[in-house]
């Protein structure tokens, strides 16, 4: 019962309350801001699976986001595919790329993995920038169709908000099931002590690859949404600084915490909107918020441990009602 209440409150907030408020404050622009926040929420939640839960610091997530965006852009402009095909296919393509590119780096740990992913992200960025025949290079791809379903709804800021919000809910559901479960315990064990996890019978490399694949899938879907909702993409959207932005969102929200990832996206993209009157200090705000949260809130605003406790209790995922310890799945 508690679970049904919690879930319906969440759905009502995302699908009714937020769009309602956005319409009241003037629609258009604020819908676009919320769409961006939604895309970054998906990105941060997905990166959080690798970095927060499995403990592999990824500095190249923007690269995978870019693969998804370009896959969608090319599929929809060259072949005219509709969004319900481009999004899952882009996700799958990105996941395949992710596995292929990350397979050799899976043995690396700590900062070596971080730097290897930085390298992968930059390889993707340089390729997008220079493979002009395929990606049109720095000019980018324009006139990407929006999210439309002929006869049902047409592309608009509101439609895009709903497309992103519903995808984000699906991503939260899937990633939540992965992390708020015994499978999530296995991933966290890899983060805490990979050798020890192996000695307890966990296939550490397998778990790393699986979490990378799921994370890349959703990064790809987020890229696809970005392409559809903005209509224009260029390699500049998928630079290292975007990876850092994603990382900062995770750190601020709390590594390993799914609601934290969303909160991080809301803060780091929302705050600059309110600071806009005093000038565009977006990245300075990002840097400063990140710095102070590492210093004063090393576990983030919504740290993993309390979030897991709440999720077990509130969403009815715990096995034993008295102790709220195990997982129901």
């Amino acid at each position, binding site marked *: 019962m508690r679970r049904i209440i919690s879930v319906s409150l969440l759905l009502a907030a995302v699908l009714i309350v937020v769009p309602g408020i956005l319409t009241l404050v003037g629609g258009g622009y604020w819908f676009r801001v919320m769409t961006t926040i939604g895309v970054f929420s998906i990105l941060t939640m997905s990166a959080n699976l690798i970095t927060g839960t499995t403990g592999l610091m990824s500095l190249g997530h923007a690269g995978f986001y870019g693969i998804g965006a370009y896959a969608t852009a090319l599929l929809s402009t060259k072949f005219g595919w509709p969004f319900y095909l481009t999004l899952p296919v882009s996700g799958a393509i990105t996941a395949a790329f992710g596995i292929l590119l990350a397979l050799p780096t899976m043995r690396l*740990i700590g900062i070596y993995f971080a730097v290897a992913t930085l390298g992968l992200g930059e390889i993707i960025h340089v390729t997008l920038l220079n493979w002009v025949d395929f990606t049109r290079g720095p000019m980018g791809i324009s006139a990407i169709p929006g999210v439309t379903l002929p006869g049902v709804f047409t592309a608009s800021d509101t439609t895009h908000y709903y497309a992103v919000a519903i995808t984000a809910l699906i991503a939260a559901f899937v990633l939540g099931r992965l992390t708020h479960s015994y499978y999530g315990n296995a991933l966290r064990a890899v983060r805490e002590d990979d050798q020890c996890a192996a000695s307890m019978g966990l296939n550490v490399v397998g778990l790393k690859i699986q979490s990378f694949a799921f994370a890349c899938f959703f990064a790809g879907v987020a890229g696809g949404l970005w392409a559809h909702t903005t209509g224009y993409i260029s390699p500049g959207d998928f630079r290292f600084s975007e990876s850092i932005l994603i990382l900062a969102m995770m750190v601020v929200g709390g590594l390993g915490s799914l609601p934290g990832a969303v909160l991080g996206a809301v803060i780091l993209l929302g705050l600059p909107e309110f600071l806009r009157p005093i000038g565009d200090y977006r990245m300075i705000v990002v840097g*400063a918020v990140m*710095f102070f949260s590492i*210093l004063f809130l090393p576990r983030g605003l919504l740290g993993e441990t309390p979030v897991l406790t709440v999720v077990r209790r509130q969403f009815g995922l715990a096995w034993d009602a008295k102790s709220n310890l195990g997982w129901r799945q």
Partner: protein
Amino acid sequence: MFDIFFVQQLVNGLSIGLIYALVAIGFTLIFGVLNVVNFAHGEIYMIGSFAGLMAITTFAPPLFVVILIALAAGALAGFGLERLAFRPFRRFRDEASLKSKAIREATLLSSLAVSIIVREIAEKIFGSNMQSIPQDYLLLKPIQIGSLSFADGQFLIFGLSIVMLGGLQWLLKRTRIGLSIRAVANNPMGAAYVGINTERTIIATFVIGSTLGAIAGLIVGLYQGAIFPAMGFVPGVKAFVAMVMGGLSSIGGAVVCALILGMAEAITTSFFAQGWGDLVAYLFLVITLIFFPTGLFGGGRERV
């Protein structure tokens, strides 16, 4: 047998490689002493460049004064960086936490945050475009030797790099502070027990590393005529690649790998479009990490 053009490219690559080497040494020193990655090192490079440029535009001093100013700016920036992004995380003194995974990741993130802030502030002040550099200071005067043509900047890079590398060797091997740096790199607790001031040594390491980086930034800025706030990122990553290839804590290895990297890039750009040159470093990085996880020269490295 040897194409002139090819030799020319090799020389160009060598001079860029030397710059990467100067930057890589800063990384290597800091990694050696603290086992942390200093993500703001590229910003030190940028600061050196801008300090020099500001000196040039305000009172146009002779080149060696400009270099001294960049040097001072680098030292100051290194000191500030250590206090701001690294010192607050060394709350505990035992060896386990001095080189622990948690500190490593926290300082990686904090230096990243500081680097973003510094770069963005520079962009707010100077704009993100390339700065104009007075013609007299550009190190691009052609010098013809036989059928090869060089820029005077290349000679300056060669000369200055050799002086600095030599100076660094002298500093590390012959002076007291160099001895402390090597001792702390080896065993921070042991060094503290025999009465070495670890804090001061760590600061000295940052100052020395940052000085090298700042000077590298200045010369490259003047040689390539490109000084802009984001200039530190690419050389920073490449120097980092050189450090990883060289085995992380070996200065010699880092220098050799930086030279290899510089030349490989120069050769690549002579066959492909300029943009693809950047790919070389990243490919080198990924390949090294996969096939030579202890660096090309197989230095002993703990599993981190």
